[in-house]
């Protein structure tokens, strides 16, 4: 972990706050007061964790809107007329498997094994794309059935919630490809590994949101 120093001048950033500036490079700082500032990896990870939590708060607003509007079908189709559990199950399997392969990529990055890193990231990318394909097909089918987002408040909330998650997955795939390119061009430098840490957190958080999504939207929609 500490083989490559990342102390090039452009990389010091706003987090480097003074005293004992070298001690944290060995992971020696405790962050509980006396031992100096936490390592940059901890600071960056924590900051991104705060962002992810705020993203989850945003999703909870969409979830609240969906839950309030789920009965407002305006005489149109309800969830149990539209949702296909087989499709939702496939999507879930893809996203869960991609979360696992993303974890494998984290292990490969820690071990500095490029081959395994690329393989795991490529698998994550393919699974994410399959997920997006399934979702796009589902959306197209709904619109073709006349159950588009303009049909009722329920469907507006549905498309907003699920579409917002799909948008996050799309951005995540762009980020994934960027990370592969950066590791290819620059290797497992400390700053690249911090970015990858954030990406992995982002991808796992998307899976957590999907857990809430398939439970609340698809399974409860079909069960009621």
């Amino acid at each position: 972990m500490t083989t490559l120093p990342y102390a090039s001048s452009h990389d010091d950033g706003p987090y480097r706050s003074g005293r004992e500036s070298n001690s944290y490079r060995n992971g020696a700082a405790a962050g509980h007061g006396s031992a100096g500032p936490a390592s940059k990896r901890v600071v960056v990870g924590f900051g991104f964790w705060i962002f992810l939590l705020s993203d989850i708060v945003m999703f909870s607003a969409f979830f609240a809107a969906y839950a309030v509007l789920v009965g407002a079908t305006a005489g149109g189709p309800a969830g149990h007329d539209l949702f296909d559990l087989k499709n939702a199950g496939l999507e879930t399997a893809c996203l869960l498997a991609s979360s696992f392969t993303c974890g494998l990529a984290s292990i490969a990055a820690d071990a500095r094994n490029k081959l395994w890193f690329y393989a795991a990231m490529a698998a994550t990318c393919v699974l994410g794309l399959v997920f997006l394909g399934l979702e796009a097909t589902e959306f197209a089918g709904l619109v073709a059935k006349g159950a588009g987002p303009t049909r009722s408040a329920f469907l507006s909330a549905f498309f907003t919630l699920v579409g917002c998650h799909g948008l996050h997955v799309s951005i995540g795939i762009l980020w994934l490809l960027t990370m592969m390119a950066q590791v290819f061009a620059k290797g497992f430098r400390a700053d690249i590994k911090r970015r990858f840490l954030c990406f992995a957190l982002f991808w796992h958080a998307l899976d957590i949101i999907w857990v809430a999504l398939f439970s609340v939207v698809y399974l409860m929609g079909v069960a009621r």
Partner: protein
Amino acid sequence: MSDTSHAGPDTAPGDEQEGGSFVAGFQTYLTGLALAVLLTAASFFIASTNLVWAPSIPVALVVLAIAQMGVHLVFFLHITTGPENTNNVMALAFGVLIVILLIGGSLWIMAHLNQNMMPMNQLMNMQR
């Protein structure tokens, strides 16, 4: 938190504990995957079966979903209860508080609004 001098350094969310070997890391993700698959399968089974008393299904789904989120947090994001993770857990707790307030509050308020609101046709008549 003041007497944690024996505790190790803070860890970033997503980072495993110090000393985790290659095999141990792999086993963590594998355990997480197995538990998540189990909970997902249980959710889909409960939603599509007729064996369960129908009104209990949403409750069961919520419980299973929360359990699975916990599995993801522990095994994939490596958020643990250890002292080096205190900051991450505190942030998570605050996030969960906001989420509960937002969703619970919205549902509560909107349900009461629906109950207390005059039927729409009467409301329209009053405006004339």
